[in-house]
Structures are given as C-alpha cells and as structure tokens.
C-alpha cells in the first residue's frame, strides 16, 4: 500500500527550511578540502624531485692550485659543473681595469670589489655569461676579447672588460665572482 503524497511533500519543505549551511554542505566542503590538501601535499615531492639532488649539491667546494699561472695567463676549471676562469692579471691590465672603475656601466663595480684584499692580480669568475649562460671567449691566447679587451660572448654578443664587467650587449650583470672565495695558501684558491 502506498503512502499518501502529503507527508513526503511536507518533509521536503521541512528540509528546505533548514538553515544554511546544511550538514551536507559541511561534509562536501570538508571532503573537497581534505582531498585538495592531500593532493597539494602529494605534489610537493613530485616538484622537489626536480631540484638538484644531494650528490649534485655535494660538489659544492673545490680547491685550485694556481702556482703554475703566470701573470697574463688564465685557466678554466669546473665548480658545481660550471666553468670558472682563474686569471692572473698583469700590472698593465690592473691599471686598465682601475682606469675604467668609474666609467658608465650597467652593473658598476670596481676591480677592488671584484678581487680579494691584497690579491687584486687574481680574478676568479664564473665563466658563464650572465645573459643566457654561454662560456665567453677571451681567457685563452688568441680568443676574441670583445670591444673592451676582456671577454666576448659569442652567443648573443655581450662584451665584458678586463675585470669581467658588462660593458655592451644584452647581459644584465657582470661575470659572477663566487662569494665563497678564499686563499688556502699563496698558491691554492678555494671556491665554495
């Protein structure tokens, strides 16, 4: 036997009359929030797995023996998988760099600020163009040195001066001097 229709209608009306938010709204929001927070938490390892792994980060420090570098010479070495120029400036180059200390520059810096105290003949810089990361030429004999007698990036035409300061072209900043730079002894440099 079927029940009369009225009680059902009345019940629906009663449900509609319940004040917002209903219990069911709360359950919906709580469920979706729980799932959302869970998904976000699960995304964290999926994103951080992309960052440098522990073995890559462990290569953070090197020591370079510079005893064989004569004034006017430079070597390329690797630090954190990135090439580094270690160059020993001649007195003429030091004078040339200092003469330009106050020239108009995109990223003004003096030679003194780019070298260690009393070691201004030693210029250590990442050999990574600050534009898009190519290795500038000019460290080795016979390579193009650009318009400012320093370094030239063949990729997009950035010109750096003797002290690795950006003078012309698209690069935004000077060649980076590693902050973590020190002399272990007179002939050994530590980077990192």
């Amino acid at each position, binding site marked *: 036997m079927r029940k009369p229709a009225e009680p059902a209608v009345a019940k629906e009306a009663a449900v509609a009359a319940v004040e917002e938010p209903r219990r069911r709204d709360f359950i919906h929001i709580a469920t979706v929030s729980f799932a959302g927070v869970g998904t976000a938490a699960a995304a964290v390892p999926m994103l951080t797995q*992309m960052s440098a792994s522990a073995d890559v980060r462990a290569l953070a420090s090197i020591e370079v023996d510079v005893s064989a570098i004569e004034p006017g010479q430079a070597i390329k070495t690797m630090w*954190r*998988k*990135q090439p580094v120029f270690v160059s020993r400036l001649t007195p003429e180059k030091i004078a040339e760099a200092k003469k330009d200390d106050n020239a108009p520059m*995109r990223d003004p810096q003096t030679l003194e600020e780019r070298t260690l105290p009393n070691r201004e003949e030693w210029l250590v810089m990442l050999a990574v163009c600050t534009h898009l*990361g*190519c290795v500038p030429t000019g460290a080795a004999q016979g390579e193009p040195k650009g318009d400012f007698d320093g370094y030239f990036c*063949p990729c997009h035409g950035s010109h750096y001066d003797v002290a690795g300061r950006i003078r012309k072209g698209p690069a935004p900043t000077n060649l980076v001097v590693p902050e973590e730079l020190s002399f272990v002894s007179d002939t050994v440099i530590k980077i990192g």
Partner: protein
Amino acid sequence: MSFPWAQEYKPKHPLMQWFDERLPLPRLVYNSVGAGYPTPRNLNYFWNFGSLAGLALVIQIVTGVVLAMHYYSTVDGAFNSVEHIMRNVNSGWLIRYAHMNGASFFFIVVYIHMFRGLYFGSYKAPREMIWLLGVVIFLLMMATGFLGYVLPWGQMSFWAAQVITGFFSAIPLVGEPLRQWLLGGFAPDQATLSRFFSLHYLLPFVIAGVIILHIWALHIPGSSNPTGVPVKKEEDTVPFHPYYTAKDGFGVGVFLIAFVIMTFFAPNFMGHPDNYIPANPLSTPAHIVPEWYYWPFYAILRAFTVDFGIPFTGIVIIPAKLMGVLAMFGSILLFFFLPWLDTSPVRSGHYRPLFKKFFWFGLIPSVIILSICGVMEATTTWLILAQISGAYYFAHFLIILPLISRIEKPLPLPGSITEAVTGKPLKEAAA
C-alpha cells in the same frame, strides 16, 4: 555538428553493423573523414597541410619510438648511442635521419598551415577555438623539438639546453632557482638529460591529444574555404571522402617525395656539424644557432641590447635580458589574441586590398628578415635589421591589423561558394 545534408552512416556489412552498435567508432570515422563530412567544394592546396601535419606527427612518433629502443639517456652514453644507431643498428641511420628531418618537415607543413590560417582569416569567428588550440599545439611542438635536440648530447645540444633554460633566469627573483629546478643542478647534466628524454617522449602524445580537440573544434562549424564565404547549400559542399581523401592523398605523395629526397640526399642540410662533437661544458661553439624553425624568435630575443628604463637616470625598469625573453615569448603568445585584434568581418585576404598589401609587403618580409637575422652573427648591422623587422612584426599584429580592420573597404564578396567556383549564382531551393 555538420550540415543537415550530411550522409548518414549505414554499415553495409553485418559485422560492421554489429561493431557500430556496440562501439560507434566506424561512425566516428565516417563522419570525420568519410562521406559523412560535407566539405566546401573550393578548398585549394593550402588546405592539405593540416592532414600533412598529422602525418608528420605519426612519422615522428613511429621513428621516435624505435630510436628510444636504442638510445641511452646518460651523459656518458647518449652521444655514443646515437653514433651506435647511425653505424651499427640495422637501418638505424635511416630511422634517425628520418626523425631528424621529420622534425623540420613537421615545422615546414605547420608553418604553411599557419600561413594559410593567417592569410585566409581562418582564426575568425566561429573558428577561434580551433586557432587557439593550434597555437597550443605550436607551443608544444617548439618545446618538444627543443627537448629532442638536446638528447644527442652534442655541443649544440648542450648549449641549447644551457641557453634555453637561461631564458627562465631572466624572470625577476624566482628566475635562477626556477632554472636550477628545471635543470636539476647548476648546469645541464645527467638530471637534465634524463628528464628531457622523459618529457620528449611524453609531449608528442599530449600534442596528439590536443590535435583531437583541434579537429573536434573544426568539425563544429566545418572547414573554412578560400573565399571565406560560409557554406549555404548542399551545392557548396562535397563529401570529404572521396574528394578530399584523394586530394589529401596526392599531397601526401608530394610531401613524401620531398621528405625522402632530404632524408636520403641531404640529411644534414638542416642540421649543424657542431652537434657531431660531444658536449663540452667548458667551451661554447663559436657560433651557436638554433634549428631553422626557431630563427625568427631567436632574432627577436637578441634584438634587445639596451635596458629599458628612465633615460639619463640609470634607473632600469626592465633589463635588456628580460625584455628579449618577454618579446620572444610575446611574439608567439600574441597569436592567442589574434582573433580579437583583426576585427574585419571579411575572412579571406583575397577580398581585403589593404590587408593583402601589409601581409605580403610587411609581415612576410619581416618574418623572413628576422629568420635571416636569427642565423647571422650578432653584429650591429644584423641587430639593427632585427630590431626594425621585429618592431614591424609586433606593430603588424597590435597596431596595423586593428587599424586596417576599421578603415579598409573590402572588395565585393561572391554570393556563395558555388558562385565563386562556377560564376553562376547559387540556385534557390526548388521548394
């Protein structure tokens, strides 16, 4: 979807009927590329390039899956495994050269496909969504092409990875951490190569998915046509099969002839000898250039040499590096706005005298000059040329197109597709 006079699928064989009732796949094919899809009767050969692009993707996936069976994605093994494919794997040289040149041919047909869309106004209402999905496919293709170029781990591969991930370092504050996150280190290395291989394998299938959406969106209004006049009656259309299956088939033949000529006789013509030198993180090749299909964008990237700021104060608002990167991405992203920049109701360039002039004597030369600038060394002359043509490129889309849409007086349009083809007006319905 489709026109009321579209033929209905009626399976002839009882087996097909049995199949169609349980999974209407035969019906889908029939209505998409069969007799059930009425198509404008006047499509010219520029309308071949969509199906050719599909074919190019299939070639890339088939050859790519085979190459992946022989390739090692390790920094020590990658270069040698590519040489192993070239020298030892049976027909390996053919498959690799087909994949290498297949990428170039994919871009050739897609560029012609885009040219068709630009000239005949295929991006206009009601086909905006098709165009937008097409731009998404183009971006995915560029990403996939770059990722694949890195895999042989030659000199060009390595420095492409370095330079292109360098784009992201231009973003203020988060740029450098973002770049290191993309590379998985401070410079391109094993982590980079592995993830690039993984993504290079993934993205073509994403492209295939977006192509399905692209065709789905196309089949709602149906194909446009060289007059830009919408289909009015059944006489304006022919069934896709056999008319355009045959025409597309002919195009496939011509495409394959060109493709095998390059693959067999000049396989390295579009490549770079430096990429046959193993990657050396200590030395950038003297002249690095991307693959030809990136040249115009590369020229725009390099065209910015001075910071954007307040003159004589030394205050920099946007550094040159960021400007270059923004302009390069902007030159593609502006395609997303094209349907709303060109407000002329006339689709086809045939009937737009002013548009036609700017298209042939402005846009096309500027893109060609940018391409040449992209491959030349960054000397002052080429930089200035790139700056001028780059400026025109942006002005064309952002200023000239909206302006001529307003002032141009279009030529009279034909009354119908049939009238354009036969010279006689479309007969009024007998009823």
